């Protein structure tokens, strides 16, 4: 079930196991049969930890989605709410509890499991509604870092960026620090901590403080990680705004990957069996899980999309040849061998079929004129061309009322690549956007300004060219098929965040002091003492392991770039990636937009 988690340098199965243990312990606290009422958002992340079978073993008989009204009739002893600590959810729970039929017997016991943390504010809220007393167990399940893949962890906390940079609420940084403490408890103390940005500084401080306060936590595990690199998302606002051009990145840009699952239009996946005609064309989206457990996907996910076609065609030839073998199988032994390989071959074939279909879907989009035009403008901005005037393409898109998020992505990209827009240019865009999409979006524009994504240029200085040149963010001769640099993930642009990680490993940040000063927030280094017996003596040729933690989100293209560095011959460093949330430009901007409909409750 979770074999892919142990495939990497660090065996993340242990983390998953710890999560399962905690869940079982909680379930056993509520003795007897149970129904779980789910905050829908949580089912995805929980699915990565446990299956229904685990819950069933612990007497979970029914599961429902949280919604207002009367709870479904279910003859169970316990009703447990699995929820994020949010006030609007507390209102629904209140409604559920108040509508519970008090005449029923036997009565059902209520419990709440807060994920990832119990919230005093929520409990206060429930108290004010007069229902707090109805809950027997109120506990927390600290699902801080969820293993997504052999080298990837995410907190799946969608609002961290907004909370940190817009509302100065650092609660999720506290969770990040807690998650890192859990990780250290399992994988040993990380001797070296580097960081860049305000939030990174906070997290490092909290970690050091937590360690000091729980001296008992000094563990005797041999450290698996050599280095922790904490990076603020606002150090690199540029990267998520650009369109990702890796296979996985494009799947996410176009269809959105949620908790390793993607939903795709069903037409291309219709089973083509004879005699069925077109009578039962599926209408429900096709849902696929995407992770390294699938051999083919692991091979192509991080490639530039332009290099995917040739791999698929090569695979097709190999599989065809393998199936042809059956004609040559003459002896019983040969036939037996062929048959024994069949399941594997069939799995490979269905995997190839799926990815060929996905590649076709994506290709339809990447070859469209609008995709091309959009990308052209992005690349102009990133390479520093015409960033200081009103862009024609953006104006055209506004006039044709393209989706607002697309416009905002482009305008923000221009602003970031110009260290802020000239006041006149900014005002022009603002006016056009408000007139076309509605004045109420003034609130969203304000949020973007606060987050530093869209701003007037101050002091008339544009630092971006210096940063671009020093960090080599724009590479002219990019090789998409056989890349030799991380810039292949954006067909020319090398993600700033990953460049920082790369330069830290070699030759060290001292070489780029000047540029680091231009980027927001402090940069720092901390060391955590290890007991004498645990200090590592590196074998010759053994790679270092660095955990890169993106505070505020990371894109699939950045992950691809780090994996590329891990695989480089004599790169010397392997990377494990952690983040508060897997994002792309669209989901990121969306999280910063003002919700314009009144709250549903």
């Amino acid at each position, binding site marked *: 079930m979770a074999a892919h988690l142990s495939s990497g340098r660090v065996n993340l199965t242990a983390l998953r196991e710890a999560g399962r243990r905690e869940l079982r312990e909680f379930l056993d606290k509520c003795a007897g049969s149970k129904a779980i009422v789910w905050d829908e958002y949580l089912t995805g992340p929980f699915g990565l930890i446990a299956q229904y079978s685990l819950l069933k073993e612990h007497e979970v008989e029914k599961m429902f989605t949280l919604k207002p009204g009367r709870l479904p009739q279910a003859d169970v002893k316990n009703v447990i709410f699995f929820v994020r600590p949010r006030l609007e959810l507390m209102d629904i729970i209140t409604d559920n509890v108040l509508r519970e039929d008090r005449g029923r017997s036997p009565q059902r016991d209520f419990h709440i499991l807060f994920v990832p*943390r119990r919230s005093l504010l929520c409990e206060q809220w429930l108290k004010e509604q007069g*229902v707090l007393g109805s809950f027997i167990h109120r506990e927390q399940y600290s699902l801080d870092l969820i293993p997504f893949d052999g080298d990837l962890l995410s907190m799946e906390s969608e609002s961290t960026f907004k909370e940190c940079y817009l509302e100065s609420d650092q609660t999720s940084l506290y969770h990040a620090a807690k998650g890192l403490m859990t990780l250290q408890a399992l994988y040993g103390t990380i001797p070296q901590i580097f960081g860049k940005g305000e939030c990174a500084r906070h997290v490092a401080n909290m970690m050091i403080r937590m360690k000091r306060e729980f001296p008992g936590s000094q563990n005797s595990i041999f450290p698996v990680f050599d280095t922790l690199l904490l990076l603020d998302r606002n150090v690199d606002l540029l990267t998520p705004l650009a369109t990702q051009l890796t296979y996985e990145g494009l799947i996410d840009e176009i269809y959105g990957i949620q908790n390793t699952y993607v939903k795709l239009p069903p037409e291309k996946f219709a089973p083509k069996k004879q005699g069925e005609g077109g009578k039962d064309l599926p209408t429900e989206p096709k849902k696929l899980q995407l992770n390294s457990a699938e051999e083919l996907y692991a091979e192509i996910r991080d490639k530039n999309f332009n290099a995917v076609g040739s791999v698929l065609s090569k695979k097709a030839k190999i599989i065809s040849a393998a199936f042809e073998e059956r004609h040559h199988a003459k002896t019983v032994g040969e036939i037996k061998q062929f048959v024994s390989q069949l399941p594997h071959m069939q799995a490979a074939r269905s995997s190839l079929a799926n990815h060929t279909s996905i590649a076709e879907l994506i290709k339809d989009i990447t070859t469209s004129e609008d995709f091309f035009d959009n990308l052209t403008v992005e690349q102009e901005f990133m390479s520093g061309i015409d960033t200081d*005037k009103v862009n024609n393409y953006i104006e055209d898109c506004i006039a044709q009322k393209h989706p607002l998020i697309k416009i905002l992505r482009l305008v923000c990209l221009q602003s970031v690549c110009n260290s802020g827009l000239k006041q006149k240019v900014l005002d022009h865009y*603002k006016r056009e956007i408000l007139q076309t999409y*509605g004045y109420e979006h003034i609130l969203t524009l304000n949020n973007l300004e606060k987050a530093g994504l869209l701003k007037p240029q101050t002091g008339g200085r544009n630092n971006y060219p210096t940063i671009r040149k020093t960090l080599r963010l724009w590479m002219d001769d990019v090789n998409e098929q056989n890349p030799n640099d991380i810039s292949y993930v954006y067909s020319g642009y090398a993600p700033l965040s990953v460049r920082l990680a790369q330069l830290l490993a070699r030759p060290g940040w001292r070489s780029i002091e000047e540029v680091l000063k231009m980027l927001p927030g402090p940069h720092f280094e901390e060391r955590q003492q290890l007991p004498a017996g645990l200090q590592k003596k590196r074998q010759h040729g053994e790679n270092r392991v660095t955990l890169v933690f993106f505070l505020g989100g990371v894109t699939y293209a950045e992950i691809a770039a780090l994996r590329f560095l891990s695989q480089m011959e004599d790169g010397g460093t392997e990377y494990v990636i952690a983040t508060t949330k897997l994002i792309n430009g669209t989901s990121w901007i969306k999280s910063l937009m003002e919700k314009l409909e009144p709250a549903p409750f």
Partner: protein
Amino acid sequence: MSRARADEEEYWHSSKFRAFTFDDEEDELSQLKESKRAVNSLRDIVDDDDDDLERVSWSGEPVGSISWSIKETASSSTSSLEGRDSSLQKGSSSYAAFPKQVSSYSLSSLFKGRNKLPSFQSLSDALSDTGVKNYAPELRRPKAEYKDYSSDWSPKDTVRRMQRGKVCSLERFRSLQDKLVLLDEAVARHDGNVITAVLIFLKRTLRREILFRELEVRQVALCHLIHFLKETGEQKLLLDLLRFLDRTEEVALSQYREHLNIQDVEKRREFLKGCIGLPFSAEDTSHIQDHYTLLERQIIIEANDRHLETAGQSEIFRKYPRKASILNMPLVTTLFYSCFYHYTEAEGTFSSPTNLKKTFKIPDKQYVLTALAARAKLRAWDDVDALFTTKNWLGYTKKKAPIGFHRVVEILQRNNAPVQVLQEYVRLVEDVETRLNLATKYKCHDVVIETYRDLKDRIQLTAYKCKVERGSAEEEKINSILNN
């Protein structure tokens, strides 16, 4: 700023900028096709019986996953077991095997809002509802003991205990000094949960001025309080706080945000009127003013048009009934509406396009684009013509388009303009290559022929002969040019 098409091409081919294209278009395509073919042919060899291999429902949820099970266990209480079991036994990836349950637990149903609930309620529910609040707290005494309070934890210990999820009584922190120490201790730990809990306590036990004053020098705590007040909707206290802090622009925006919660348009308009005087930045002030003026206009237009429509006297409304009200629509949408229904009105009326253009200082480009789209939709080609005709002082007419005629052609084409209309504008496209492209694409033969004639390109002209109908006027025209 716009590069001519030819330059652009050259730019892309010669320059260092690589756009995202498939270098080898044909090859790439055929590669995908190839793997597709292989996959399909293999399907014939081995019949698709991997159904037994992966137990995955069509929607892709692995059977047994949590989200699958929610539907599963939930449906068992609503839908019949039969269909479900058979699908389970097959456990197949065939979509048809799964009964399409109208799951009452979809996300959308989740967020439809409370106001819809009463309809499902039985009368007795509705009646008892008011009494519930008082009754519920005593419903059941909590069995779990959570009030673990010993009375003299230090601030530090208290915060620590709270961090571990234990509820402590804060009441014993009576003096201002004690309360502030408690707050500082919470802040030092960056745990928003605890900070907020302490703030709730302070908010309840401190006088407002004192609370504000102390928070002013405690920025982190202050941010948390602001966030908390936003979250819980304590608008009045929030505004008082922001005012105290002199964060005037935030006050203004926060107040303006409130209009989104006002459904009644008259009330919303009144509210927006009140927003105009708020201390926004200069640029924003004009936007807010415009927002108010726009809604004011929309209310007047809406009232008039609704009347016109129901009276049934006006032809345009009879022919093209309105699909939605114009209230709360963006400015450009409103302009489109007015170009559609009120194009010929004198500038004096509120609903006339020219009036809107003037009032909101809509740029020429934007205006022309919108008017063009609206008139083209109505197939009012004369209006389209007039839109681009200018007279100079000698009385000569000239065609001019602030958006470029290639854009005009595109918009007309999207609205299915006839070739006669289309070619008139294709002819006006200045760049020769663009003109040829558009003319060829939309079969404006005359324009193609004339352009080749002007270019004196015999070869192309001869080649074009096979694109026009045999014996048509166009063919004759080509022949006569070639013969001269």
